[in-house]
């Protein structure tokens, strides 16, 4: 765990009328990059004034050499400020934090992402490629994303299966229907998933029924990111868990999915 002054190497904006918008921030952060594992996250200081007040958590999207990259959506004031960062700026990054994915030996494995949930799964996918583990990656979106973002993902991960709710890219439908369709052809040895709660919940019930081990990367409000404030708890089946320290990756069966 390192508090590092990282340098912005590049920021790419995947923005276009009618697409889901993403931003890709590449940082020179050699110390964090050296330690980072797929599924871990960083806490980014977004401003030098006090509004926004807290750091913002982001999964590591990829980690190559001395660089780490974050893929994020602009949803509020913090990410808005971040989207203005340009090459050369220095930003304070705390990481790598939390426990990452536990890579299973069996395959095939499936990586199931919803929206910005692609971020930790991309890093995981690169790692699986390195390890020679075969996997499929399914990405669910509300509507299409810009082609060059898809190109980037192809480059990192090979082919991927896309579902959009409005059918504007890939197959039409929810990512969960994609999973079920795929399941008709093949049973996975394990699933790693990241995305909105309803998606993860649906997958959790389904994998339980089908008896497929699943790891999920969850989100919650955070303050410290290092286990000190006890603010980021999430309800597990056997009590509260600190998401920043015991997670953000959990086994699906540890989590209390009914709320």
């Amino acid at each position, binding site marked *: *765990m390192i*508090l590092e002054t990282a340098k912005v190497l590049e920021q790419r904006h995947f923005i276009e009328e009618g697409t889901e918008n993403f931003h890709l921030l590449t940082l020179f952060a050699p110390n964090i990059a050296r330690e980072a594992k797929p599924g871990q996250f960083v806490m980014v*200081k977004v401003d030098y004034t*006090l*509004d*926004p*007040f*807290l*750091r913002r958590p982001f999964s590591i999207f990829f980690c190559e050499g001395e660089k780490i990259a974050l893929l994020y959506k602009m949803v509020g004031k913090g990410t808005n400020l971040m989207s203005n960062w340009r090459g050369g700026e220095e930003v*304070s990054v*705390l990481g790598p934090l939390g426990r990452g994915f536990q890579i299973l030996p069996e395959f095939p494995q499936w990586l199931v992402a919803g929206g910005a949930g692609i971020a930790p799964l991309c890093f995981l996918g690169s790692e699986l490629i390195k390890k020679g583990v075969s996997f499929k990656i399914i990405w669910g979106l509300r509507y299409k994303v810009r082609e060059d973002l898809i190109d980037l993902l192809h480059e990192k991960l090979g082919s991927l299966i896309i579902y959009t709710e409005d059918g504007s890219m890939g197959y039409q439908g929810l990512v969960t229907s994609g999973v079920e369709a795929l399941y008709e052809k093949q049973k996975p040895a394990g699933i790693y998933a990241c995305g909105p709660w309803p998606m993860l919940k649906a997958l959790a019930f389904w994998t339980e029924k089908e008896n497929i081990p699943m790891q999920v990367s969850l989100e*919650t*409000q*955070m*303050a*410290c*990111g*290092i*286990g*000190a*404030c*006890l*603010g*980021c*708890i*999430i*309800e597990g089946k056997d*009590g*509260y868990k600190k998401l920043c320290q015991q997670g953000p990756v959990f086994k699906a069966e540890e989590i209390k999915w009914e709320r």
Partner: protein
Amino acid sequence: MGKINLGVKVGRLELKNPVLVASGTFGYGEEYAPLIDLNQLGGIVVKGTSLKPKIGNPPPRLAEVSCGLLNAIGLENIGVEQFIQEKLPFLKKFDTKIIVNIFGFSIDEYAALAEILDTTGIDALEVNVSCPNIKTGGEVFATDPKMVAQITQAVCQRTHLPVFVKLSPQVTDIVAIAKAAMDAGADGVSLINSFPAMGVDVFTRKPKLGNITGGLSGPCLKPIALKMVWDIVRNSNIPVIGIGGITNFEDALEYLIVGAKAIQIGSANFLNPQVSIEVIKGIKAYLERHEIKDINMIIGSLKT
């Protein structure tokens, strides 16, 4: 210019510098140990500790607000026994003062905690009185001078350690409460605790916190806390530890100039884990620049 003295004395507690980290924002020290040198701190106030472990409030427990943070942790903690066995040995390795923040739901619980902690080798107790009194049906101890006095007395009778009473800001007359604590034997008071507050998500129309209400902390509170410290120091000789919204050395100096003998940094640790060290360095550089040899010459030096 010779060596600068940063050492201060707050009641019977001697600190090598006036910069402490606040309860609940620094865990048990171990979480921050990979990020900063704990030896440099004036002291560490550990997470609020009760007789038995406490599970705390349902999520969500945090919400960011303008220049601040709402929290409803619900005093989750591992209980005093586990603290002594699992957390204290690590803390004792460092050359810094260890202050344990204690709370209970009856006077007896406070007294029992004081007794248990008395001979564990910690350096002081901070008594968090912002808890509902379950005997009287939930009225918060901190708002009644009589109850604050009773708790303080019960604690002081069971311990030889310096005792600081941590005050809640939501009172009409903070000076009366501080005096009640002192008359009952406290070494000083620390203030402020977080301020009762809430937030609403207008799209779901639900409270932002699982507990509906919580405590506000952060820079948004600083001007209020500073005024409360000022109210106490100009009406008494009570040693005060100032808390609330400190994010840099200037904020810390504001409290010291007004008259606080030491300060605690809370939520800002989240923003910048190294803030406490930067504050110590900043104070030192300030004294050098102004050619002041002793931090005690700054304390209470407000020009009115």
